[in-house]
């Protein structure tokens, strides 16, 4: 029998080939596989997810604005991926540990990031924008796919500690071509480590469409590694939450790693330094705007009669408040003094670096008293 090949390069059809609970028009669909994982989610919880997604989009817009105004060196927008990030991250337990890539603004939001945490790294003040232990999220990772192995090592530690925790890693469709990601899947499967792989297939790795990375549905690769997977509609927040609960339960039960491919879309540029008009047609973007994850949930809530004006107004106010705090924190950041460039390279003294520091301190001191 020849393997089944799904024509994933056809982005118009792509989303149709996923597990979903809420259709793009807001209608609730029966899904026997996913429904049991979210049968407790009531209208109030749906509104909370809606609130999260609206706030995340506002944070993201503020990040873009701050970059355009010269306050940030760079920003990696996540507009369009709110359902994937919020749905999966809200399924986590506090004790779980996350190894993200650089686009997971929504994940660190859901893990309790403070307003300044979103911008500290992108402004160039610090190597890590947040305290990893406080959020139980590793620093944002820029090397594509490197963090997936870290999650596996952490998961191996969980296994040896016999702890009731899961290591979770986020990465994109481009990362699935990296050796590290494939090695991570092999190591996780071999050890049966409690690791959840979350691939956000947002269809674009800068200018390269997902068809350059894979000619087979990405989730379809995982079973070949011995890892069960689900291909979920990444713009359906409820389906993303259900898939994540399935994956976490699988890992917590000692069954080893699980894999989610969330099929979504990067509505913005790769980063603020990118110009997507050079490589993708406006029609494609328009198509995906009609599948917007936030308006989908709004349509569903409206259908239920559960999207009150008061909720919408309060949500917008909360989003604006966070954006304001983020802006104020960003602009108010005080850059560390010159010799801080030497801080934290080593945990213990290093005679070579200590000497360089002393020499640079003397150099700086030679300018003291000059205008």
């Amino acid at each position, binding site marked *: 029998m020849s393997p089944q090949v799904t024509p994933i390069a056809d982005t118009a059809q792509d989303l149709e080939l996923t597990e979903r609970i809420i259709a793009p028009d807001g209608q609730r669909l029966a899904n026997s596989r996913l429904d049991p994982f979210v049968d407790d989610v009531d209208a109030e919880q749906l509104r909370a997810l809606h609130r999260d997604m609206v706030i995340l989009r506002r944070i993201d817009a503020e990040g873009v604005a701050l970059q355009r105004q010269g306050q940030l060196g760079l920003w990696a927008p996540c507009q369009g991926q709110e359902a994937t990030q919020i749905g999966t991250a809200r399924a986590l337990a506090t004790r779980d540990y996350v190894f993200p890539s650089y686009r997971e603004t929504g994940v660190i939001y859901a893990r309790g990031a403070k307003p300044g945490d979103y911008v500290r790294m992108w402004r160039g003040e610090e190597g890590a924008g947040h305290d990893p232990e406080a959020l139980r999220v590793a*620093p944002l990772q820029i090397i594509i796919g*490197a963090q997936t*192995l870290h999650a596996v*090592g*952490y*998961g191996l530690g969980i296994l040896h*500690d016999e702890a009731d925790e899961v290591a979770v890693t986020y990465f994109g469709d481009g990362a699935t071509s990296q050796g590290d990601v494939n*090695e991570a899947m092999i190591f996780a499967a071999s050890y049966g480590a409690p690791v959840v792989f979350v691939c956000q297939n947002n269809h674009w790795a800068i200018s390269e469409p997902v068809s350059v990375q894979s000619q087979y549905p990405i989730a379809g690769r995982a079973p070949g590694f011995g890892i069960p997977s689900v291909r979920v509609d990444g713009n359906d927040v409820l389906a993303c939450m259900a898939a994540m609960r399935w994956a976490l339960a699988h890992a917590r039960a000692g069954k080893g790693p699980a894999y989610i491919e969330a099929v979504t879309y990067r509505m913005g540029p790769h980063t603020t330094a990118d110009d997507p008009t050079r490589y993708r047609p406006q029609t494609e973007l328009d198509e995906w705007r009609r599948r917007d994850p936030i308006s989908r949930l709004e349509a569903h809530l409206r259908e239920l009669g559960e999207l009150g004006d008061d909720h919408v107004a309060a949500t917008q106010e909360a989003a604006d408040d966070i954006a304001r705090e983020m802006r104020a924190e960003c602009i108010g950041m005080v850059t560390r003094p010159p010799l801080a460039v030497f801080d934290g390279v080593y945990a213990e003294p*290093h*005679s070579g670096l200590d000497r360089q520091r002393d020499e640079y301190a003397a150099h700086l001191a030679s300018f003291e008293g000059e205008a």
Partner: protein
Amino acid sequence: MAAAEMTLGKALGAGLRQAMRDDDRVVLLGEDIGKLGGVFRITDGLLDEFGAKRVIDTPLAESGIVGTAVGLAFRGYRPVVEIQFDGFVYPAFDQIVAQVAKLHYRTQGRVRMPITIRIPWAGGIGAAEHHSESPEAYFVHTAGLRVIAVSNPEDAYRSLRQAIASDDPVIFFEPKRLYHHKGQVDLDAPLADAAPMGLARVVRTGADATLITYGAMVTTALQAAEAAEDEGISLEVIDLRSLSPVDYGTVAASVRKTGRVVVAHEASREAGVAAEVIASITERCFEYLESAPLRVTGHDVPYPPAKLEKYHLPDLDRLLDAVDRVLDRPHSLTGADA
């Protein structure tokens, strides 16, 4: 207990065993390190004593091994990685230089990377391609790493325990061709009493010139010093032991005494450790130098086939020729244009 005689390989195994007994967060990862005991048998017996949770046979993927060690370090473990051969470390290069080396700096110490990466290292054993490499300069050049190269059993036993106990990542080079060399090791000597990791050692005192090297080349340097003595030349030999940081206190004291320097290593020359050491000596001791410091190194060629390696590795005669040059004695290039 009095010191016992053992090989460098056995001393490394003893060092691992002691480190694992001292701290149950120490775990070993590598290819074939379990039942086989590693291709060089360094981890022989450790699986039986500590079990498969602490002596972990990994899939055959070096980046995966080091990346997994990073995750274990995030969780508070102190992983010790065995890279099977020097030439196999390159697939792990990103995880070492972009992850292991930088995470402490990136997080300003909130995340520590107490990872030791052991690398059976360098040539002279007639091995196949990619089994005789000297990649130390890449790691010396990388901020955030410490780099150790051992030359004898006592040093191996002590330095390995110190590397594992260090809160910084350490690239730990083990000279393959000395694995079977024997020396005295006091297994009960408290680590607290040992010289700190990172200090160089004057292994032979002399007055006329300083010969600086590390790893298996220390043995060659000592042979050169003996041969030179027959000609009435007194060589001081320094074993650097640590390549990052380099102990310039010990180095400079010697250079100020002798005024003449040869730095030797198996690794090729351009932008190598010897270049860095000589630049630093020149900055610190210029007025003490009686002649231009010289390098004796592997040539700037890919590591040659085994039958040719003896023409690549610095030997006694090349060291002595360089000594003649720094001492302004007749040498192989006498009369040649500079």
